[in-house]
C-alpha cells in the first residue's frame, strides 16, 4: 500500500460497559481521502466506535491513531486542536436548542474565531443551501424543525468547518428517498471534491454502495468483513449476505424469542 500513514487507524480497540462487551478488538484503517462505510445491526457498537475515535469515549484497550499520531495520549489542548479539523454528524443531530439554526451551523467557525458573526451567517446560509435548506429557517429554533431537517442542519454544521475528516452517523436515516439521495451526493462531493476522509455509519445498503470506497461490517465487536462495494454481493460471507438481504434466517441470531 502507500507509505503515508492511514488517516485513521484502529488497532485492537476494545470497549465494554460494565460486563457488556461492545467492541471486542476492532481493526480498521482508513486511508487519506478514502470513504469507508461501516454497516452492522443496531446496537452492535457502530456509534460507540466513532465516539472512541472522537475521544468522547475512552477505549479499554487498543490504540487509535489519526495521521499516525496516537490520539489516546494527547493532552486536552492537542485534542481540541485536532477536533478543529474533524466534523461529526450525530445520529440524533444533537443540535443546540438554545441557539437559532444559523448559529448551530456556524458554531464551529465562531468557536474557533475563524470569522465574525456577519460572515459566519453568510457561510451558514451557504452550507444550508448545500443540504437543501432554505434561508427562511435560519432564525428558527432547531426544536421547530422536522427530524429530517434537523439531520440536515447537523450535516451542514459538520461540513461548515471544512474538516479534513468527517464522520456521519446514519446520515440518511429518517429522510425521504429523494432527500436521502441529495445527502448521498453531498457526502460523495465532500469526499471527492473537497478531499475529506469520510467514515459513515449506515443501515441503508443503497446509500452505503453509493458513498463508500470500502464497506466494513461490524458484528459482535469485530470487523468481520471489509471490501469494495462491488464485492459485497458475492462476498461468500454468510453474515454479510444475511445482513444485506435482510434475512431473518442465517448465522446472525436476533435476540428475540419466538
Amino acid at each position, binding site marked *: 500500500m502507500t507509505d503515508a500513514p492511514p488517516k485513521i487507524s484502529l488497532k485492537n480497540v476494545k470497549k465494554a460497559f460494565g460486563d457488556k462487551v461492545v467492541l471486542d478488538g476492532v481493526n480498521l484503517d482508513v486511508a487519506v481521502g478514502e470513504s469507508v462505510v461501516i454497516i452492522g445491526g443496531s446496537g452492535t457498537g457502530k456509534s460507540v466506535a466513532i*465516539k472512541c475515535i*472522537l*475521544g*468522547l469515549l475512552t477505549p479499554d484497550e487498543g490504540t487509535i491513531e489519526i495521521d499516525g499520531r496516537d490520539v489516546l495520549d494527547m493532552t*486536552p489542548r492537542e485534542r*481540541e*486542536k485536532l*477536533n*478543529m479539523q*474533524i*466534523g*461529526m454528524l*450525530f*445520529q*440524533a443531530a*444533537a*443540535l*443546540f*436548542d*438554545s441557539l437559532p439554526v444559523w448559529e448551530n451551523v456556524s*458554531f*464551529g467557525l465562531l*468557536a*474557533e474565531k475563524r470569522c465574525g458573526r456577519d460572515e459566519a451567517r453568510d457561510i451558514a446560509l451557504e452550507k444550508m443551501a448545500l443540504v437543501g435548506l432554505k434561508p427562511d429557517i435560519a432564525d428558527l429554533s432547531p426544536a421547530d424543525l422536522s427530524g429530517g431537517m434537523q439531520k440536515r442542519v447537523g450535516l451542514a*454544521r459538520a461540513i461548515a*468547518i471544512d474538516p479534513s475528516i468527517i464522520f456521519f452517523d446514519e446520515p440518511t436515516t429518517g429522510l425521504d428517498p429523494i432527500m436521502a439521495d441529495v445527502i448521498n451526493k453531498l457526502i460523495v462531493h465532500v469526499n471527492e471534491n473537497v478531499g475529506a476522509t469520510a467514515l459513515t455509519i449506515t443501515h441503508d445498503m443503497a446509500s452505503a454502495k453509493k458513498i463508500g470506497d470500502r464497506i466494513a461490517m461490524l458484528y459482535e465487536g469485530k470487523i468481520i468483513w471489509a471490501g469494495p462495494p462491488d464485492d459485497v454481493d458475492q462476498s461468500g460471507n454468510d453474515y454479510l449476505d444475511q445482513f444485506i438481504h435482510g434475512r431473518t434466517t442465517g448465522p446472525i441470531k436476533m435476540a428475540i424469542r419466538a
Partner: protein
Amino acid sequence: MTMTLGFLQSIGRVFLAFMGTAGRLSLFTISATSHCFRAPWYFRIIGRQMIEIGYYSLPVVGLTAVFAGMVLALQSYTGFARFSAEGAIANVVVLSITRELGPVLAGLMVAGRIGAAMAAEIGTMRVTEQIDALTTLSTNPMKYLVAPRLIAGVTMMPFLVFIADIIGVFGGYLVAVYKLGFNPANYLQNTWNFLEISDVISGLVKASAFGFIVTLMGCYHGYNSKGGAQGVGAATTNAVVSASILILCFDYILTEIFFAK
C-alpha cells in the same frame, strides 16, 4: 456470622459509594472553578445567565423578603411584648434579614428557580449528546456551559441579596409603622443605629457562597445525568435538594467563621 458480614458489607458499599460521589464532586468543583479563571470567557453567555439570576429572580426573592420582614416584625413584637422589649424589633428585623434570612431565603429560592433550570437544561444537553457535540466543535463544555453559570451565580447573588435586604427591612417597617403604630422616624433611626457594615458584608459573602453552591449543584447534576427524561428529572430534583441542604449547612459554617469569636 454471615449476618454480621452482610451488614458490614452493606455499610462498606454505602461508604464506598459516598466516597466515590465526594471524589467526583471535588474533581468537578476544581475543574469548574479553574475554568472560571482561564480564557476564553463566553461573555455573551455570562451576561445571559447574570440577567437570568439577578434580574428574573427579583420578583420571587423580593416577595419572599418582604413577607419575611413583615412576619419578623410581627413575631418579635408579640414575643418581646412579654418582657417589654418591643423597642428592639427594628434591630431584630434588620439584623435577622441582613445576616441570615436575606441570603438563606434568596439562596433557597434561587436553588428552586435557577438550580433546577440549570440541571434540566444541562441534563437535556447531556442526554441528547449536545455536550458531546460541543466537544467535537472544539468547545470545552466545562468552559462553555459550567464556568459562565458559576461566574454569574457568584457575582449576581450578592446584588440580589442586597436588594432583598432592603425590601425585607422595608417589610418590617410597613408592619411596625402601619400596624403596630411605631414612629416612622424612630423606627428608621433604630434600624440604622444598630446596623454595622459587617452585618451586611457577611450576608453578602454568604450570598456569594450560596450562588456558587446553587449553580455548582445545578451544573454538576445536569452534567452527570444519564438515561433520558427520567434521568434529567432525577438530576433536577437532586440539584435542588443538595443545594438546599448545602446552603443550610454552609450557612452555619460561615456564621461560625464570621461571628464566633
